[in-house]
């Protein structure tokens, strides 16, 4: 595992609600290599966010539990780590950008006060040094007049600006791994493009790895080196970016790609995958996608497909069995 920075192995997470337990994550495996941008895509409810929260150790302690599996970060298993050790990693070696820039900043503190938090936690710096560092990073993320911004409150900034502040918050300690949970979903399209461009730049400059969680395949195409497609708490396909778009193996991935609006063909109606992601407690035997799959056959309802590997391209679909050529 020389070049892997994050390795998630057979991760299983359980949620308790009352007496019932559900398993929203059932055996998730993926690796993130150093310097790579890995996209995690899937519909709402597919378990992307839960996976990312698990990596950060942010799952609610009272109602959730990692039942099985490992999350190895630089060879250390995060699931077995004590809270105190974990705190040294959070915000320092791994940091996270959240979906909602509007609510991710504390309304009663100035930007400067909030940005000094990670440095005070993880670095031994004087006030002056902290301020200098913050202004540096704010300039890096393209915030004009950073010297003034640090004395302003979150409500004085626009959504795009706040997301830049959030990115700088994640950048301050120069983490090795940045997790971005739908960082652009709450922003309008023009700002989205700017923020994505910015993240790409910063990632390259600081030699970070990026785990990008999104439901937007456009964003994935723009940003990622490899993609993990999740469905109902399982990984259904992992592939290098071009290969995924050129040759999707899993019918679900194909459905996702087909339901993207394209510029050249004016379709009457956009394609959509019928039905919904099954709730974790509705999953029985067979393939999780079988009930929505246009290509499903008897076997799909009987037996869960294993992982079929072809080089780096991994998929979990019976169609990959034996007669590979048949599937297109």
């Amino acid at each position: 595992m020389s070049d892997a920075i994050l390795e998630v192995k057979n991760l299983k997470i359980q949620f308790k609600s009352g007496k019932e337990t559900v398993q929203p994550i059932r055996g998730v495996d993926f690796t993130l290599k150093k310097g790579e941008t890995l996209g995690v895509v899937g519909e709402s409810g597919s378990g992307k966010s839960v996976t990312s929260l698990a990596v950060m150790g942010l799952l609610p302690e009272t109602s959730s539990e990692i039942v099985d599996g490992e999350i190895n970060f630089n060879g250390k298993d995060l699931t077995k780590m004590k809270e105190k050790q974990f705190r040294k990693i959070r915000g320092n070696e791994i940091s996270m950008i959240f979906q909602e820039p509007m609510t991710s900043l504390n309304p009663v503190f100035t930007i400067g006060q909030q940005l000094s938090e990670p440095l005070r936690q993880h670095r031994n710096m004087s006030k002056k040094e902290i301020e200098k560092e913050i202004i540096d990073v704010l300039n890096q993320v393209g915030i004009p007049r950073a010297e003034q911004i640090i004395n302003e409150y979150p409500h004085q900034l626009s959504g795009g600006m706040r997301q830049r502040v959030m990115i700088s918050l994640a950048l301050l300690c120069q983490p090795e791994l940045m997790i971005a949970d739908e960082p652009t979903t709450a922003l309008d399209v023009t700002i989205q493009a700017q923020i994505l461009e910015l993240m790409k730049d910063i990632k390259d400059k600081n030699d970070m790895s990026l785990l990008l969680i999104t439901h937007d395949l456009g964003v994935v195409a723009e940003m990622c080196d490899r993609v993990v497609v999740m469905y109902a708490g399982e990984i259904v396909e992992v592939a290098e970016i071009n290969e995924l778009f050129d040759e999707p193996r899993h019918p679900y991935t194909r459905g996702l790609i087909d339901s993207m609006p394209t510029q050249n063909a004016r379709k009457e109606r956009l394609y959509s995958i019928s039905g919904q992601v099954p709730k974790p407690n509705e999953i029985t035997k067979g393939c999780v996608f079988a009930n929505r799959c246009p290509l499903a056959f008897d076997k799909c309802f009987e037996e869960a497909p294993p992982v079929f590997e072809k080089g780096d391209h991994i998929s979990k679909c019976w169609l990959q069995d034996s007669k590979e050529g048949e599937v297109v």
Partner: protein
Amino acid sequence: MASSLPQGEQALDQSVKPKQPSKIAEFFSNLSRSWTGMLGFSIIILLVLLSIFGPWITPYDPEHAEFGKKLLPPMTDGHLLGTDQLGRDIFSRIIMGARVSVIIGVATVCIAGLIGTIVGIIAGYFRGWIDIVLMRIVDVQLSFPFILLVLVINAIIGTGLRNIIISLAIGGWVIFARVIRSEVLALREKEFITSCIATGVSRLEILVKHIVPNLFTPMIILASLQIGTYIIAEASISFLGFGVQPPTPAWGNMLNEGKDYIFSSWWLITFPGIAIVLTALGVNLFGDWLRDTLDPELKGE
């Protein structure tokens, strides 16, 4: 308006604010925009001044009885609001009564607010069994009528200024506990708290440094509204003969003593009554204005 600056620069120019006005100046400019808030604030200031400088303002000794001058109507013999059944100057007694009201209102709010806030924070932040236990205690206590509860406690621990503060505080902390708990519950699920955990801040630090500062606004609003309640409660209790004991003048016991003369000498009961109404009105008007001003939801508008 008509500016020679290009669009972009103009926008930039607007966003570069001049040095922000001080908090106090901002407070007054906000206050001047609402006449109800201004009225409430004026009444409160007047009340505070009266209770501080009372002894120097009163024209007569409020506890000095002069039987030759009893039950004088207002504006006679130099008695602005008349005299009571023992010939004491009512104007002086009302001024001195303000002191009792202010002390009781403020002291009770401090004690009840402190206890209630601590309980609310513990229950809301740590949840689990401690939340269940504390909130059931609050529920049980809320099922008793406030005045009745205060009277019972007062009857047990005895009358007097200190004891009435204690009994009002015991009766009143539950409101604070309830409100603060629900605020904390809402806050701890906010994304900025998750983001704090994600930057490696410890749980205790999050509570003290990131949640508590967010509680100041609801605390201030609730406290300002509760002061009025406590002042009225004190008056009710003193009226019923518990609480502040004569000859110390308090608006409540002035009402109590004056009620026997209500048909012959109306001024005995009217003026302390007006004082209570004005005080409660002032505090509530101010509290309402504070709520509207400090509510972050309305702030941007």
